[in-house]
């Protein structure tokens, strides 16, 4: 009895409020649509459209704080500077290489970790906690730790090598070894993120599918390729988009581990942008480089989205 009356009162209240509101404010459908869309549009404008347009605008300026001169429109001068800039090419190539190595690397390791965490352990939390720790660690801190690990004198890696009778390696003297050490650190850091997303995907797959497969006599391997992998495809693509974009923006780990060294052999595009803007105070060129990186990220995202669409059409 009480319940019904509350509902009735509540409904009555709502009706009265609506009547009151409509006296003051009675938009047609189009206006309402525009109004409902407005908060999102404002948010998008403030958070994305303005900063990006500002960035693109700055990339056309000759704006260097060390020159003491006011900003001047320079057209495409900043972009024309890039083809002749060897550090730009090196940094871009390093960034692409880091992406090509660490994205598949962290996917494979992350997948394995997710499968491990999905096993029917009695105690699930220690496994999941250990998955979470590398992800929760700040990037620069991870870089710092791995920098210590690979330090030629004090590092644990050389200590292990020496203990098993191998010679000391000066990791950061060799561009290749320094690069490998950086990729290893990134894979370590990024795998747990991949694992968590994939683990979430794994848990949405109904157990009944595997039970049915068991009845039909399908082995574990076949179950993996026929059930797990196809059903995880959308999850994997989402994880890959996130990972690829962060890989293109790689900064902290190489910055802390090698500072881009030896020389500029392990510098990334994000580090080069930072250097031009923060150290050299050349905001025009730095912005132009950032526009290039932004374009690269957009391109990659578009490719992935296309992949999702085509895979969606196939299934």
């Amino acid at each position, binding site marked *: 009895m009480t319940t019904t009356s509350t509902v009735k009162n509540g409904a009555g209240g709502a009706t009265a409020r609506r009547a009151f509101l409509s006296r003051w404010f009675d938009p047609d459908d189009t206006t309402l649509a525009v109004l409902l869309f407005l908060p999102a549009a404002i948010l998008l404008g403030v958070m994305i459209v303005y900063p990006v347009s500002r960035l693109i605008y700055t990339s056309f300026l000759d704006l260097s704080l*060390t020159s003491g001169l006011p900003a001047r429109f320079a057209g495409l001068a900043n972009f024309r500077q890039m083809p002749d800039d060897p550090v730009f090419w090196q940094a871009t190539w390093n960034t692409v290489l880091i992406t090509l190595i660490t994205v598949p690397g962290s996917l494979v390791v992350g997948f394995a970790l997710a499968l491990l965490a999905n096993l029917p352990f009695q105690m699930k939390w220690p496994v999941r906690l250990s998955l979470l720790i590398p992800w929760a660690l700040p990037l620069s801190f991870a870089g710092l730790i791995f920098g210590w690990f690979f330090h030629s004198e004090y590092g644990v890696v050389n200590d292990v090598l020496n203990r098993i009778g191998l010679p000391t390696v000066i990791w950061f003297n*060799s561009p290749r070894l320094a690069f490998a050490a950086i990729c290893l650190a990134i894979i370590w850091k990024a795998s747990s993120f991949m694992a968590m997303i994939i683990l979430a995907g794994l848990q949405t797959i109904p157990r009944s599918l595997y039970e049915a497969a068991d009845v039909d006599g399908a082995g574990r391997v076949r179950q993996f390729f026929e059930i797990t992998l196809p059903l995880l495809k959308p999850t994997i693509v989402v994880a890959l988009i996130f990972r690829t974009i962060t890989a293109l923006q790689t900064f902290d780990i190489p910055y802390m581990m090698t500072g881009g*060294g030896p*020389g500029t052999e392990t510098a990334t595009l994000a580090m080069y942008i930072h250097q031009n803007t923060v150290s050299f105070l050349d905001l025009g060129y730095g912005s132009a480089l950032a526009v290039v990186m932004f374009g690269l990220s957009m391109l990659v995202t578009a490719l992935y989205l296309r992949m999702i669409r085509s895979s969606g059409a196939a299934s």
Partner: protein
Amino acid sequence: MSVARISKMAGWLFGCAAFAFATGAAAETNLKVFVTSQGQPGIWRTLLDQYEARNPGVKVSIELGGTTSDLQAQYLNTVLTAKDSSLDVLMLDVIRPAQFAAAGWTSPIASDMSSYLRAYAEANTVDGKVVALPAFADSMFLYYRKDLLDKYRLQPPKTWDELADAAKKVADGEKNPNLQGLSFQGKAIEGAVCTFLVPYWSQGKVVTKDGKLDFDRDAATKSLALWKGFADSGVAKKNIAEVATDDTRKEFQAGNVLFAVNWAYAWAMSQGAESAVAGKVGVARLPAVKGGEQATCLGGWEWGVSALSKNQEEAKKLVAYLSSPEVSKYVAINGSLLPTYGTLYKDTDVTKAVPWFADAQAIVETAKPRPVTPRYNEVSEAIRTTVNAVLAGATTPADGAAQIEARLKRIIR
């Protein structure tokens, strides 16, 4: 209580709070000083405590940032580009006052510079205006183990070749695998710029003349080859490309280095309670290349007043104190930071605490400044990353010299 009364009371209360806040702020000036973390902040804190005691109503806090000169510059670049007014006084590496003044980040200070050492009076004067005041002088010196040189009857080397020979002789005699012949800065930090310039200058060459690039590629190749040679021949250790300024200081202090290239600050610590080499340290002029002149890099730090500071007058007063002869003497004795006043080099209190300062004035006075340009950060980057790449073995000295030349041509036109 009527609405009008409540609002009246609220207004009254608000007024009181604002008044209290305003008078509180007027009674006390809070200044924030940016000090480099390797610039011995503890010593400056003591001096700031004294300043606070003498100036009631002024509170000074220290902000630390970055472990190397370039990281500190990056930090200040970020803060000042963002027009942040929280820092009032900035400790700046001697290479930066010109650059900060060009960016409009420091306020001009009215001061007579004639009592300071000439190099610092010049480094802090831009277009006839004093843009910062000297904190302490510095230059690179050769630290050596007096006990070991005495043991093998060796003199402090006058040329880099003599140094290599001495290192070899001591290494052969000592048979201590932990003892390095020479430690210097090979990491891609500001110190590596000096690493490059010292033998380059020693050959009588300059980087810029009348603001134009005057680069000698052969001399640059020889300079890079000299340092790489030390690493290859085992005089310096193989991972020298990982070594920063304070690594050199720590290793020398631990007794693992025969010769070390370092700044004046390393002295006080090498004589401290935690030093394995207290009483066994000698300091000399940096060696020359064969047939060349002995040359060294001018260092030192300056006090600038941030143009964005809201306490201009108080900040300038504080800077004048921090740059005074009294403070210069205190930091010379307690931190082995070289004085910026010529007279203090003969002061008996100073020479008692740091005996080698008696001979240091001549060295500081002949030390060469790094290229002066508002685009110094780019110059520095081009040189230090190349030094690092050569020492790591990623580039040859000849290629490295060509790279430096190509990059400097784009920067200094």
